[in-house]
């Protein structure tokens, strides 16, 4: 398969990013975790949005569980 014009969703420095193959090649090998590869930028962005939404929901749940009960 040819990945030259594809896009990746990666996790880097505790953040999700959508980057092109060209950009990914400039990163040090052990500085990111490759999550998924996509044919188009649009698909990568859809996945990026989904992951960020999950993070937000999980953070909300954590905050809710840490909130002391109101009397």
């Amino acid at each position, binding site marked *: *398969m040819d*990945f030259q014009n*594809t896009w*990746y969703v990666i996790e880097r420095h505790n953040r999700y990013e959508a980057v092109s193959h060209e950009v990914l090649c400039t990163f*040090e*090998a*052990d*500085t*990111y*975790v*490759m*999550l*998924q*590869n996509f044919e188009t930028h649009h698909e990568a962005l859809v996945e990026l949005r*989904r*992951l960020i939404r*999950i993070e937000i929901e999980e953070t909300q749940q954590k905050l809710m569980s840490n909130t002391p009960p109101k009397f």
Partner: protein
Amino acid sequence: MLQPAAHPERLPSVWVDVLTPLKSDFNVDVTRLCAHVRNLSAKGVQRFAIFGYAGEGACFSNAEKLDALAHLTGSGIPAQDLMLGVSSTTMTDAVQLIQSAHKSGVQRFMVAPPLHYQPIGQGAMLDFFRQLIRQVNLSPWQLYLHQLGGASRLDVAEATISELRREFPSVLAGIVDQDIHPSHTLDLMRSFTPQLAVIPTHEANLVVLKPTATLSALANLIPIVIQHILSHDTAVQTTVMSGMKVRKPDDRVTELMTAIGDQPMIATLKLFLSVHYHQTEWELVRPPLMRVSSTAHEPLLKAFKNFNLLANE
């Protein structure tokens, strides 16, 4: 390009025993399957066995396998990079699957001995494979005998393999050994290499066996580690701090096996992939395969977090 059966030792190295993602109705999620294979391909893996042992091959019909195959090749995965698992109780089904998949360009088939109500004798086993090869009657195609391990009592005996090799040298290309005991694989290697490729599947044995190829279920998660083991690289860590133990590739295999523990392997690997991809659907296995129990769920998630899948694995 397909290697001739006469030189099976040149078979490219790591074959991922691809896990099969399911939808909530337990049908194959072909979109997710194509994406997973694509992701593995982006990590440098080039060979994929679909519907093998880890791919829950015995749980799917011919039609489901062919549909998934069509989606994979349609999404740009070259058919010559695929090996298809064939595990059918009836010869006609096995023949039909091989012939249909061959039309899509697949030339390698991993065929398991048929299941029957009673143990199958080696004479009957020889007849089954002999008739299967004759009825498939294609050129070129390669058959890999899928040895399911001692406990299954379904192994094809060495004498039977020798006879098949003698009768069909251009078809019988190798043996995929699912047995966890290295001595089992070693015996096969001593008897049949280099005439046949003997492909172990138990990653913990790779360092001892030093095979030229492996079929790996763990490669669904750590394909680069498995590649390192096969190429006898010593370290996968690129960042080394003084005083810190440098983990070797086989250490990572041990750590992942420890994280899996005594839980059902396929379900556990799917659970880990669901975490990696943040897709809960990946957890599903098709009945009658056992799911991860509710009590084991949280400890496994914790174990996978501690495993800490690294960037270059």
